């Protein structure tokens, strides 16, 4: 499953050839490894207008051991290291005229951005704006960030976090995530945080210590990667898959010191059975990852009822039923629980031959948004992650041409890895993500599909 083209493009002769022919030059992305610093180099924090977050962002970076350089030394300067991250506090925007300051700050800084660098813009949500001019300026950032993400090369990304007034305490976790190697394949995204009680004193290296996480579809592929990352972050993982996948499931569970549970999630009593087992064996669950999914592709006109129904049952109805059973069973969901559903790029952009799959994955987004207020009332969250082209055993079976084209149709010019999806899920599972609720985070390298 190695990316032969990326490896070629980064080799000596490959660099020359791809440069001369103007071919895509996918970078080797900076991915998270335990013990790694938040950023491999210095960061710069700038602002457009009189923002309220600049000092807090600077403090957050310094706490993480990052050297924060002044925008003045960046502009026109040639000395010093290349920048690992460029952060723009745009909470002070009052109208489009203030955007010039954003440009003035970003242009020289981005020029000095290191490979796998990060551009992160923070702003208020347009809907909260005091005037149409302010809303326009805030919304303008959306276009700015998405375009900049497409211009960046060398594995660098640009993302936008919207912070309403009063939700500042929810910011630290998402900022750290977007700057870190965990967000290697998250690009061109807009995430909105909300005010929430964010617990203090989280173990940054193992933020899920003492937590119990259940992952469906954990026997292989993305599910196995999710189980491993959650375990690496400290969680005890209850790995669930269909009985027929039990051999691989046991291997995954044994590798990470977890527990294997063979369960058909579409069974009528699956939710109750799971809830009871989680209560009896683990005293409830902190993190639920609905990952299990199937594809039964056919053009709509040729699709039989069995294909339609099985995809809906596994991908959507089971998530609804199991979540409901966990909500209804006293003691099943621990306080501050996190539910994360795996949606798909197909659910956002649609995909030929996948009316059933795309419907189920779009349905997940509807489910997550509708449930978010109830979860917020419980001090819990529910979010979706939508993977784009992720290199798995399944994509390895695609024809070479389809696979190569599919994997390059994004700003990072390469397919993502299962671990990229897993890292985003692990971020949403953290106690520090209490202010991220009802969101859909795409892990797609800013795919051109459905963008």
């Amino acid at each position, binding site marked *: 499953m190695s990316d032969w083209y990326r490896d070629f493009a980064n080799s000596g002769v490959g660099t020359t050839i791809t440069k001369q022919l103007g071919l895509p030059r996918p970078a080797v992305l900076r991915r998270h490894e335990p013990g790694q610093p938040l950023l491999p180099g210095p960061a710069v924090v700038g602002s457009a207008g009189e923002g309220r977050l600049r000092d807090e962002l600077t403090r957050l970076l310094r706490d993480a051991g990052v050297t924060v350089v002044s925008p003045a030394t960046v502009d026109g300067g040639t000395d010093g290291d290349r920048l690992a991250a460029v952060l723009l506090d745009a909470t002070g925007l009052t109208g489009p005229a203030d955007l010039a300051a954003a440009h003035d700050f970003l242009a020289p800084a981005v020029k000095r951005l290191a490979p796998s660098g990060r551009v992160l813009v923070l702003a208020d949500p347009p809907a909260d704006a005091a005037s149409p001019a302010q809303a326009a300026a805030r919304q303008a950032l959306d276009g700015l960030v998405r375009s900049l993400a497409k211009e960046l090369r060398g594995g660098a990304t640009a993302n936008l976090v919207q912070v309403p007034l009063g939700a500042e305490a929810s910011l630290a976790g998402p900022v750290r995530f977007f700057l870190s190697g965990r967000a290697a394949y998250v690009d061109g995204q807009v995430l909105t945080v909300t005010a929430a009680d964010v617990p203090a004193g989280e173990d940054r290296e193992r933020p899920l210590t003492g937590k119990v996480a259940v992952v469906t579809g954990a026997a292989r592929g993305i599910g196995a990667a999710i189980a491993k990352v959650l375990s690496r972050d400290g969680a005890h993982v209850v790995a669930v898959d269909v*009985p027929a996948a039990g*051999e691989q499931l*046991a291997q995954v569970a044994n590798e990470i010191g977890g*527990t294997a549970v*063979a369960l*058909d999630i579409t069974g009528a009593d699956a939710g109750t059975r799971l809830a009871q087992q989680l209560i*009896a064996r683990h*005293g409830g669950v902190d993190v639920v990852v609905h990952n299990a999914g199937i594809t039964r592709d056919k053009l709509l006109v040729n699709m039989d009822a069995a294909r339609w129904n099985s995809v809906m049952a596994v991908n959507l109805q089971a998530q609804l039923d199991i979540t409901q059973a966990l909500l209804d069973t006293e003691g099943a969901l621990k306080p501050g629980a996190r539910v994360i559903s795996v949606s798909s790029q197909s659910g956002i952009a649609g995909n030929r031959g996948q009316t059933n799959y795309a419907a189920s994955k779009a349905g997940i987004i509807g489910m997550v948004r509708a449930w978010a207020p109830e979860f917020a009332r419980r001090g819990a969250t529910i979010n979706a992650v939508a993977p784009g082209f992720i290199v798995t055993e399944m994509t390895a079976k695609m024809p070479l041409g389809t696979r190569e084209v599919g994997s390059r149709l994004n700003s990072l010019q390469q397919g993502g890895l299962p671990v990229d999806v897993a890292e985003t899920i692990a971020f949403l599972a953290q106690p520090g993500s209490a202010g991220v609720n009802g969101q859909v985070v795409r892990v797609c390298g800013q795919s051109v599909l459905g963008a």
Partner: protein
Amino acid sequence: MAAPTRKAAIVGGNRIPFARSNGAYARASNQDMLTATLDGLVARFGLQGQQVGEVVAGAVLKHARDFNLTRESVLGSRLSAATPAYDVQQACGTGLEAAVLVANKIALGQIESGIAGGTDTTSDAPVAVNEDLRRVLMELNRAKTVQQRLKALAGLRPGQLAPEIPRNAEPRTGLAMGDHAAITAREWEIGREEQDELTVRSHQALAAAYDRGFFDDLVTPFLGLSRDANLRPDTSVEKLAKLKPVFGQGEGATMTAGNSTPLTDGASAVLLASDEWAAERDLPVLAHLVDAQTAAVDYVHGGEGLLMAPAYAVPVLLERNGLTLQDFDFYEVHEAFASTVLATLKAWESPAFCKEKLGLDAPLGSIDRSKLNVNGSSLAAGHPFAATGGRIVATLAKLLHEAGPGKRGLISICAAGGQGVVAILES
């Protein structure tokens, strides 16, 4: 004064699906299968890196190199390498005997937890050199001079190249187990149709149990197999009636490949513990092993059937526990052959047998057949000799747990050499 004892809890079990001989597990060794089974148990109960008190298991068909089979399997598994282990072997009673041994040590407080299991392959069976050749080679080994060596080598003959292949036959009678069972079936006048009916029920019950997810937390797939390969959910009395008898002779022969268990490969394991050990780890207690009994019969000269020993063991067990044969909610009578189950039940119903052989004033009586092998047994699942006991213990424990507290089950397993192992479980 004896130390106070406690009853060992059955926490759960795991087995790999059973495969027909030379099928899915043709290239898997006993150690491969036992290790995979232990690993499935470890995954189910989160025992990675943990030390359990003891692992006790065995195999009936065993290579010489497998002298420390269970310990080697533990070392290859995800259990702590500091987990002690030993092998046992009591023919088809091995698995249940292993569970009894573990339960007894728990009852005495010598260990807090243990795993009992068994594994058997008829596909990767030991093939030994010809006995004559072996003598020549040993003589050669002992020889010190060239002259002695030449003399030893002179004993070599071409015929000695034929290997010794293990046979499913009794060493003292030369008869296959099935031929012994056929003698018993004839003596007890067990009809072909009732054997076939019992067989069909076994297949249907096992298939139904799989369909309702009963085995989801008892079985872990292995080498691509996720259900027992011998299982034929669509079999029928009509289909079975077409099979020719393979054991017994002449007109009265009733035993076919359908109503006898086939040669099978597989492994099973059961996790037992004290109630405290299970509670500390938030693990379930499905049932307790209450008591057990073994018996043996003289099938060589004593005129008793080879597989009739459980008929003798059960009344002893009932007497000691103040129970009657009817005081059970479930019966697990190992289906070595359909006729064996039926002959055993008939013996308990027979006033003559119970009086003359068992020395009882009244027969033990009949049982409610709807409580017998309710999730199928060896005729459907197959019978990897040493693995059957673990399969039955885990299955019955879960059945009792589902039925609620205070339910009781009886296990009866016949074994080669005229032996039998029986036990009582209670939820």
